[in-house]
């Protein structure tokens, strides 16, 4: 199936020598990533659904820039605007201490710094869609947060998909020593047609740095593949918050490598799946060294005819003594034909570790529903109160009050559209 994609074309037009090499190596190895496809995409046959959209469209895209501008929030907040994978400096607003460049525009020194992030640890060896992203992406956006910088206000990253075929987004983020930054990423479609967006981001957290990362996926009928690969050095902290709502099919990979001692990673996720859509979260945490903590909690609500998939892998390497790794996934199914496949996978080589994992799949609590209704609250409101309470374990992890409110409201409005029978 890969043969038919004609990926060589994407390689031949690449100008950067090193990137070209990376692309052609990836193409050579693509058979390897195809091999794991069957197992990793067992419940999410994304390839079948998007094969005819995978190729990049050569014809110059024209889009209604005014329409795009109108959907960019008109406030003074920091923002990074990307259209079909290309960075739009004139629409963006960047705080000082943060450098944004196309990879191809970087100095040789800076290229060297990004080498590791950009080409070191994406998951394209194992994941077919990351491989295709590596080969097909037009431009890698590099974001560098300089040393000892503390950016209090969040930076929004807004990605627009215009193509009716596919859009490739590629980012490489470097957070230097003792810095703090918060990103809130969103993907928006500006066409009414079904499209395919494919995004790969590599994030490198240097010693003692901290990252908050919010990802909000709220499509209507898009196919979306998203892979985030994180590499953490000593004493660094990462907090990921992934909120997925409708969309034809969404696949998220979140892979975190805790390379050194004393790293901390939190992964929180919430999904509300309706309109026969499909949301798949695959996560991996790899504890490589001592004394690190990972903590993962995903919760979801699935309506009839829709499906949720959760797969969480935890690796604890032999050297990683005194690791704490926690994982849980809880689901509420709103009807008999709603489906969830949830699977924790632990592989532990060290002996002095604390690990726990658990998953639940259940229905709405009928006793609680009757209790609320017996006080005069109609069934629909009562259900929505219970479901938003269910989500509160996840939203309460958002420290920023405004952002938490934003997500709580988003969830409430999403719950209103759910079908309970």
């Amino acid at each position, binding site marked *: 199936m890969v043969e038919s994609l004609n990926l060589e074309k994407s390689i031949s037009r690449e100008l950067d020598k090193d990137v070209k090499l990376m692309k052609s190596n990836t193409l050579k190895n693509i058979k390897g990533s195809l091999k794991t496809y069957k197992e990793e995409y067992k419940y999410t046959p994304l390839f079948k659904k998007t094969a005819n959209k995978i190729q990049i469209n050569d014809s110059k895209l024209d889009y209604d820039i005014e329409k795009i501008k109108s959907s960019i929030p008109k406030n003074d907040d920091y923002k990074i605007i990307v259209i079909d994978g290309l960075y739009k400096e004139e629409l963006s607003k960047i705080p000082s201490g943060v450098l944004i460049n196309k990879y191809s525009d970087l100095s040789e020194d800076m290229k060297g710094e990004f080498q590791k992030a950009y080409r070191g640890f994406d998951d394209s060896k194992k994941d077919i869609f990351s491989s295709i992203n590596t080969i097909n992406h037009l431009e890698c956006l590099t974001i560098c947060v300089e040393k000892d910088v503390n950016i209090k206000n969040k930076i929004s990253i807004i990605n627009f998909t215009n193509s009716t075929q596919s859009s490739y987004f590629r980012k490489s983020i470097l957070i230097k020593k003792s810095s703090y930054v918060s990103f809130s990423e969103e993907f928006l479609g500006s066409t009414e047609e079904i499209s395919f967006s494919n995004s790969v981001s590599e994030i490198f957290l240097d010693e003692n740095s901290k990252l908050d990362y919010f990802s909000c996926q709220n499509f209507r009928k898009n196919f979306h593949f998203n892979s985030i690969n994180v590499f953490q050095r000593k004493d660094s902290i990462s907090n990921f918050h992934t909120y997925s709502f409708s969309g034809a099919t969404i696949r998220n990979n979140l892979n975190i490598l805790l390379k050194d001692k004393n790293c901390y990673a939190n992964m929180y996720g919430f999904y509300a799946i309706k309109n026969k859509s499909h949301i798949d979260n695959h996560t991996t945490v790899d504890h490589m060294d001592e004394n690190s903590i990972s903590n993962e909690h995903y919760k979801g609500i699935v309506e009839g005819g829709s499906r949720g998939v959760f797969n969480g892998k935890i690796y604890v390497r032999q050297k990683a003594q005194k690791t704490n790794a926690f994982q849980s996934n809880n689901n509420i199914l709103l009807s008999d034909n709603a489906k969830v496949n949830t699977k924790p996978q632990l592989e532990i080589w060290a002996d002095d570790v604390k690990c726990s994992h658990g998953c639940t799949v259940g229905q709405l609590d009928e*006793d609680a529903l*009757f209790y*609320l209704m*017996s*006080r*005069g609250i109609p*069934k629909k*409101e009562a259900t929505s109160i219970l479901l938003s*309470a269910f989500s509160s374990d996840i939203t309460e992890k958002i420290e920023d009050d405004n952002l938490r409110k934003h997500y709580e409201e988003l969830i409430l409005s999403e719950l209103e559209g759910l079908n309970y029978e």
Partner: protein
Amino acid sequence: MLEIKNLHASIDDTKILKGLNLKVSTGEVHAIMGPNGSGKSTLASVIAGREDYDVTEGKIDFMNNELSELSPDERAREGIFLAFQYPVEIPGVSTTNFMKTAVNQVRKSKGEKPLDAVEFLKLMKEKMKLVNIKQELLSRSINEGFSGGEKKRNEIFQMAMLNPKLSILDETDSGLDIDALKIVSNGVNTLRSKDNATIVVTHYQRLLNYIVPDFVHVLMDGKIVKSGDKNLALELEEKGYDWIKVKN
């Protein structure tokens, strides 16, 4: 106000109520007593509209309306209140927010405008005093980690907030110490008026010293087998339920 005629109800094909009759008029207090498993809580749930029960025969009229077609929330808005024998714990929802939604739903159905934050707080303060319940408890998740007594007090607090026409108190006295019992009874008595009515389900005559009933009924095997005045409760306490069985 309430008229139950020949009520038969079952759950999962088990017959529990087997031809029950009961008439409650405004201003009255009725006590229902009876052995464990006789169907007291079932009766309370059926009146409140729990859908797990099938009403196979008979009917319930409330304020001259047939109840059978009404959902639990509609019944509540008509003025029926059930204080649960086992109040449910609901993590993630505070009693305060819950009550605000409930009170405003009830107001809406009466065509009244919703209470704003200040008005609501005022109402809440007033009713909190009545049952001596602390604000801190009400900002926590509904009943989560509450002691038995706190849960029962929360039920009466909710009753006070909603000001129902018919209150059914299902063993609200069980597990209460004497001080809590006084507080709860005092709350109930304060809310009593000539326009509303109360049904108390209890195992203990003790409660009836505080909430004095006009009628006492004995429910056995899904039917009311004996009715009398408050002296019947004393007699039951003394002689037990076997005494009735023998007499029948």
